[in-house]
């Protein structure tokens, strides 16, 4: 049943260019440092001459020798009065809440000695079920950002709170008396207490106070549609875990979408083929999005065709369910839409239709489809909706008009950066200059704050008290985990102060929660107990029933109101990257270096273009090893932006994509001038419409990681099958790797394998005898895992830590990569070093493209070799995508261990491959011998404070506070790799030993498993027969990466199952 599909990592591999062949042979990317350094024009400009160098060398050798003989004097400074809950060296976890205007997450903050060092999900939350994404777990680094404002500022100069308070207070009072217009411009606010504080502020300053909400990633269309259909200005809460059929029109509902991480949890549950049931996912989109890359059926359409396709789907569903059809809906994607409609109707009440459109008309029709399918009340919850978006675009347009007309007396801005993120930033800026009093609560002197009179910096959320109501009736609390690092003050406290209310915001929240307490079923509890329980749990769910409203949308009017998107040679659709989001965390180097899930490019945004369009327009498809992209200029109306062009198989021909969140100019040293600002062409909507694209003579260096660390070319890297095949045979797509064993070889083998250990389990020597028996029965092919060249470790004894990675559930989001970096102090190396193939991530997510054409199909249909590859190339326009996280496989017969000359990498009796940094002398033999290419070499001292690595957080005192004190910061010249988070294993074992009990399953979690929203990565003890991971390891879908190499890894992969039907779309 197996198919030998052909996978390729990029066009270079697909076309097998000579450069690719060469780089696959090489351990490292050829653009290495020596040549680069020698070619550098600045070489002669260095101030250090050879003689000086030798002098310094001599001096430092002498100094080091002398220093080594001196007793270092270290100070130990105890607390004056130690808080009871703090024990030095023991982490404390505090429940808190992350909200950045798009993603809401209930979190646990890990603190050590009073500093937050890591963020994990809070499984108590019913809204997010413990899901986080890379932006959430990276946000801890944004706390230690030295670009944050250190104090309040007046006209860009540092000032004091007293001065600022006095002057703003006076100005506001004057305006209030005169009845002038005071506008509070904020991001979506989900905090009930903050809303109350705003109301109090409005009462104090009279009728002229107005609160305008502005979302950079706007969901205005949905909000207006829901207002019209249900009378609720909010978004429905999606339950993907109950959705058998999902149809998405451009919506990347697991990445850039409001509450995306939480959606991923439910979505992941339905991607598990166990039990023979999976969701069916149709995606109609132009850019290859994260959701699209996971879809079973992905149809590439132009943005301008989306509305018609939705109307067509509506009509088909309406016909089948007896609803009223509307005019229009002529779509050229008839067959796919019919199929989707058929399956949607077949799964009534258990499906979801979702769109990214910011047009209220389109969203009304989407609502109508969901209504016809009876999804409201089952998979879509509008009775208890999500409040994570509240901005209405027209209000912002009106505000800017008012500002320019001089009608606004004061503008107070919180959580927004319109000078960067608003399409018509020039209009905003000119309006801003006409406002009498301008105040920004931004955490730094950002693009907007640079133009205001007063900057009153807000605390980072990890320094703040707050509460949230992301979903009706679901509350959560934010509590500070560290004292404010700078002279900052919470936005809410500033508002209260200016309203003449001197209570602390903490007390203010408590008094506000008295109401929630009184109305709850816990009213009999003492308030303090109630509040502290909620604080401990992080969340509180009121038991109130939602308000059920009937659908009252006017589909005909909506269909008529849809704005037509302009068409041209190229249509531009903006998108949100899974890592960068809206760019508010652009100065976070973890996010900048996180490879994009699809393109695997770091430190950049770029125009995504179909490879065939690139050929037609003369753009380089980056198949050469230098990764120099041609720069194109795109122009929309009068706005022109230049960006490199990057090939994106799956991109709809005639469309291009560009990510927002880049091109910041005042984010900080790390985020400034990285990429281009795509917000500048967005006018209310991410569907920009027709643009002209012209090639320039410029080229741009791209730092992408897919071609790095290419696995040795063997067959069993990524295995996949379809649901129907899986149901027929659970082992479908996962045949055992076979090896040819000659009988002579078998005899020779016999002298090995009878090790002195007593711990042989079913992978021990017993199998070799089977192997020989099989081989001697005339079949020389035996399963690869039955052949053994080495003596076995006692793998059946004690603990054996292992991992399973379910390729079906992995959505490629990258939360594991940043989670791993945060836990293990993985350095950030910067764009130049990434280009040289020296990224340090211990965990990479390989992205593979594949198509329908297989070796078998070619053979069966008699397609010749050349035609076969031609067919594959054609299919590259519409590839299937698969993600595969690869970390150290912790082989039981590790090839790295045998080649280390100094025994710096050795085997643990708990199954792990250990790396001892202080023994390593940096020969890199281990990296050469690793078939998985998971070892990383410290080419430089990334933490020595040099300018070259200024982007690495460990380079300044503030950034260093994020380091995990339980993990060593590696020095130059040593090898490092995934350790299975051994610090966590040791800590959990110690806890169990102290309590005199066994280690519970799931008690030990690697950082990647902990961060994974879909539980694709499961970690545990393989020798604990009842553990989750041991169950996964025994599953028919489980296999080892490169099984035929015989290194017997402790990481198991599980075959990817796609819910596809043969010969469709």
């Amino acid at each position, binding site marked *: 049943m197996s198919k030998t599909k052909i996978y390729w990592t990029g066009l270079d591999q697909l076309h097998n260019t000579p450069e690719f062949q060469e780089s696959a042979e090489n351990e490292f990317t050829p653009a290495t440092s020596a040549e680069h350094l020698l070619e550098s024009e600045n070489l002669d400009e260095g101030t250090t001459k050879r003689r000086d160098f030798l002098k310094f060398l001599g001096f430092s050798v002498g100094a080091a020798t002398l220093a*080594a*003989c001196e*007793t*270092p*004097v*270290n*100070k*130990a*400074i*105890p*607390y*004056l*009065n*130690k808080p009871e809950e703090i*024990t*030095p*060296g*023991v982490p404390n976890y505090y429940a808190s809440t992350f909200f950045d205007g798009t993603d809401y997450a209930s979190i646990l903050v890990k603190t050590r000695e009073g500093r937050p060092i890591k963020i994990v999900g809070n499984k108590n939350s019913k809204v997010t079920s413990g899901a986080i994404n890379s932006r959430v777990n990276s946000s801890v680094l944004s706390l230690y950002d030295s670009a944050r404002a250190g104090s309040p500022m007046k006209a860009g100069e540092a000032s004091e709170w007293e001065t600022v308070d006095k002057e703003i207070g006076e100005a506001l009072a004057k305006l209030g008396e005169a009845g002038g217009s005071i506008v509070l411009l904020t991001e979506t606010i989900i905090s009930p207490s903050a809303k109350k504080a705003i109301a109090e502020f409005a009462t104090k300053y009279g009728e002229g106070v107005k609160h305008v909400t502005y979302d950079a990633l706007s969901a205005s269309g949905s909000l207006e549609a829901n207002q019209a259909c249900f009378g609720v200005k909010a978004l429905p809460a999606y339950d993907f875990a109950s959705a058998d059929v999902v149809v998405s029109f451009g919506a990347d509902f697991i990445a850039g979408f409001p509450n995306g991480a939480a959606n991923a949890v439910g979505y992941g549950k339905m991607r598990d083929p166990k039990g023979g049931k999976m969701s069916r996912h149709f995606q109609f989109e132009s850019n290859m999005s994260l959701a699209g890359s996971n879809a079973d059926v992905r149809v590439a359409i132009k943005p301008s065709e989306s509305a018609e396709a939705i109307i067509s789907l509506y009509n088909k569903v309406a016909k089948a369910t007896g609803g009223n059809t509307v005019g229009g809906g002529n779509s050229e994607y008839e067959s796919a839409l019919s199929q989707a409609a058929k399956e949607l109707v077949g799964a009534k009440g258990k499906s979801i239709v979702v769109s990214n459109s910011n047009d209220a008309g389109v969203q009304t029709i989407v609502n109508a489809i969901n209504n016809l399918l009876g999804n409201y009340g089952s998979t879509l919850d509008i009775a208890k909706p999500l409040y994570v978006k509240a901005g209405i675009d027209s209000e912002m347009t009106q505000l800017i008009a008012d500002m320019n007309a001089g009608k606004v007396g004061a503008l107070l801005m919180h959580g927004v950066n319109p000078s960067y993120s608003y399409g018509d930033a020039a209009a905003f800026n000119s309006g801003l200059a006409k406002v009498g009093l301008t105040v920004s609560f931004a955490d730094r002197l950002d693009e907007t704050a640079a133009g205001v009179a007063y900057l009153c910096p807000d605390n980072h959320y990890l320094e703040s008290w707050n509460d949230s109501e992301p979903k009706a009736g679901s509350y959560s609390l934010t509590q500070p985990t560290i004292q404010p690092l700078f002279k900052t003050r919470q936005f809410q406290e500033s508002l209260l102060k200016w309203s003449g209310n001197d209570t602390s915001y903490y007390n203010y929240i408590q008094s506000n929660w008295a109401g929630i307490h009184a109305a709850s079923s816990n009213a009999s509890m003492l308030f303090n107990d109630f509040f502290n329980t909620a604080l401990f749990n992080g969340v509180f769910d009121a038991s109130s029933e939602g308000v059920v409203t009937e659908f009252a949308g006017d589909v005909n009017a909506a269909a008529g109101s849809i704005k037509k998107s302009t068409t041209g040679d190229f249509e531009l659709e903006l998108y949100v990257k899974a890592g960068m989001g809206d760019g508010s965390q652009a100065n976070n180097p973890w996010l900048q270096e996180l490879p994009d899930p699809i393109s695997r490019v770091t430190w950049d945004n770029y125009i995504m273009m179909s490879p065939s369009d690139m050929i037609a327009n003369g753009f380089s498809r980056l198949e050469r090893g230098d990764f120099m992209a041609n720069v194109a200029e795109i122009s929309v109306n009068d706005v022109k932006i230049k960006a490199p062009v990057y090939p994106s198989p799956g991109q709809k021909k005639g469309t291009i994509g560009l990510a927002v969140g880049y091109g910041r100019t005042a984010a900080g040293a790390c985020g400034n001038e990285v990429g281009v600002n795509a917000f500048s062409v967005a006018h209310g909507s991410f569907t920009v419409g027709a643009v002209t694209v012209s090639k320039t003579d410029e080229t741009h260096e791209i730092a992408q990681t897919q071609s790095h660390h290419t696995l040795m070319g063997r067959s069993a890297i990524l295995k996949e099958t379809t649901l129907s095949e899986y149901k027929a045979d659970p082992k479908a797509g996962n045949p055992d790797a076979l090896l040819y064993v000659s009988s002579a070889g078998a005899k020779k083998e016999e002298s090995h394998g009878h090790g002195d*250990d*007593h*711990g042989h389990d079913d992978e021990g020597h017993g199998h070799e005898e089977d192997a020989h028996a099989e081989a001697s029965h005339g079949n020389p092919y035996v399963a690869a895992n039955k052949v053994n060249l080495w003596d076995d470790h*006692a793998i059946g*004894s*004690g*603990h054996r830590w292992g991992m399973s990675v379910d390729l079906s559930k992995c959505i490629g989001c990258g939360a594991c990569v940043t989670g791993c970096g945060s836990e293990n102090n993985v350095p950030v190396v910067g764009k130049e070093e990434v280009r040289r193939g020296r990224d340090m991530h211990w965990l990479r997510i390989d992205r593979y493209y594949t198509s329908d054409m297989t070796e078998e199909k070619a053979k069966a249909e008699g397609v010749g070799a050349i035609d076969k590859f031609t067919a594959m190339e054609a299919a590259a326009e519409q590839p299937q995508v698969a993600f595969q996280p690869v970390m150290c496989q912790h082989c039981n017969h590790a090839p790295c261990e045998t080649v280390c000359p100094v025994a*710096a990498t*050795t085997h*643990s*009796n*708990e199954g*792990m491959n*250990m*790396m*001892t*940094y*202080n*023994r390593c002398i940096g020969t890199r033999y281990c990296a050469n011998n690793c078939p998985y290419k998971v070892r990383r070499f410290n080419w430089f001292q990334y933490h020595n404070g040099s300018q070259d690595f200024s982007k690495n957080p460990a380079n300044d005192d503030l950034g260093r506070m994020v380091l995990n004190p*339980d*993990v*060593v910061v590696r020095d130059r010249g040593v090898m490092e790799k995934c*350790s299975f988070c*051994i*610090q966590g294993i*040791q800590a959990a*074992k*110690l806890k*169990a*030993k*102290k*309590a*005199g*009990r*066994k*280690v519970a399953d799931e008690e030990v979690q690697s950082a990647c498993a902990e961060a994974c929203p879909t539980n694709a990565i499961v970690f545990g003890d393989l*020798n604990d027969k009842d553990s989750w991971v041991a169950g996964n390891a025994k599953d028919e879908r489980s296999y080892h990466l490169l099984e035929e190499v015989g290194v017997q890894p402790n990481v198991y992969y599980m075959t990817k199952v796609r819910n596809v039907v043969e010969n469709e779309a």
Partner: protein
Amino acid sequence: MRIASILFSSLLLLAAFGATAQDGEKLFKQNCATCHLASDKALIGPGLAGIEDRAPSREWIVGWVQNPDGMIASGDAYANTIKEFSPTAMTAFGYLEEGDIHAILDYIAHPPAPKEVAVEAAAGPVEGESGSLDENTLRNVLLAIAGLLLVLVVILSSVRKSLTSLLSEKTGETAPEELGAWGSITNWLNMNRGWTGVILLVATLAFLRWGVIELMEIGVYQGYKPEQPIAFSHKIHAGQNGINCVYCHTSAEKGKTAGIPSLNVCMNCHSYVSEGPSGTVEIAKIYAALDYNPETKVYGDSPKAIEWVRVHNLPDLAYFNHSQHVVVGKIECQKCHGAVEEMGVAEQHSPLTMGWCVDCHRTTSVQVANNEYYEDLHERTPAWHDGNPVTVERIGGLECAKCHY
């Protein structure tokens, strides 16, 4: 001399007041010391030094101690004056006989002299003076002898030279060529090749041995005994007063570091004990750090942390956890830290080298019994069922990544 005189005078005192003062001290500690000091410092009640000069008479004091409320109620003028001292009324000690109270008053009037320990502790952190003095003297004597011998060699060679020249003058032979000091040495070396080889060999070996020893000592600070900002004595606290180690080093049972106690732990006792055997100076440093006024018992608002000098410095690359060893391994603190209860100044007892760690891991048995974790692991590991003890080594205690990650 000073010690002798103090001892002598205390002996005299003891001889004079022996019996009563002993009883008085015991009675004082049992009954009064919770609230009163024998000095003029106030605790909960006033300091009792010179009480007999203040109170109307001994009889009055006896009456007051046995029934203070009665004295106040009777309208006694002095009783009503001293009740203003504190809102806390004094407890009645009706069970104390008149003789007991007299013994206590005698003890207060003539407290015994502080013991010898006090003098040593007062001397503060002085590193073994006498020992190093001896070594210095020896070295100086040796240097002097070497110098004398060198002078002797110079004199003798010049004598020899003049004698040779005299001899050659007499005999009329030509004097042998003048070689000079260095020349004569090289000449001798040339003449005695065998000895030269032996000397070179010995010198090289000695140098190498010296080098190896010196190199092995780099980074090993066994015996490190830094001067601390407060002359804290473990001998007094852990030794004489018998305070359990984990009373102060609480996190030894919880976390990786044993922890230096925070000042609030010190204040559990030192809010009452403001004077140690060495006087008030060292304890006053705690008060100064906390900005605490022992007279008014009020904490100020500008406390400053005490910067202790860390004695045990394990490099960052090695992970060590106290609770693993103390709670799970049930190892006595003294096994690694030595007899801390006898240390006036804390010092590093063990070398803290990896070899030292590993040696112990090789020989120490894991306490499998009564710990479900180890029992389960033991069951799952057939290799351990061979009757030999399960040492830390056998559970992986010698593996790199058990401590280095």
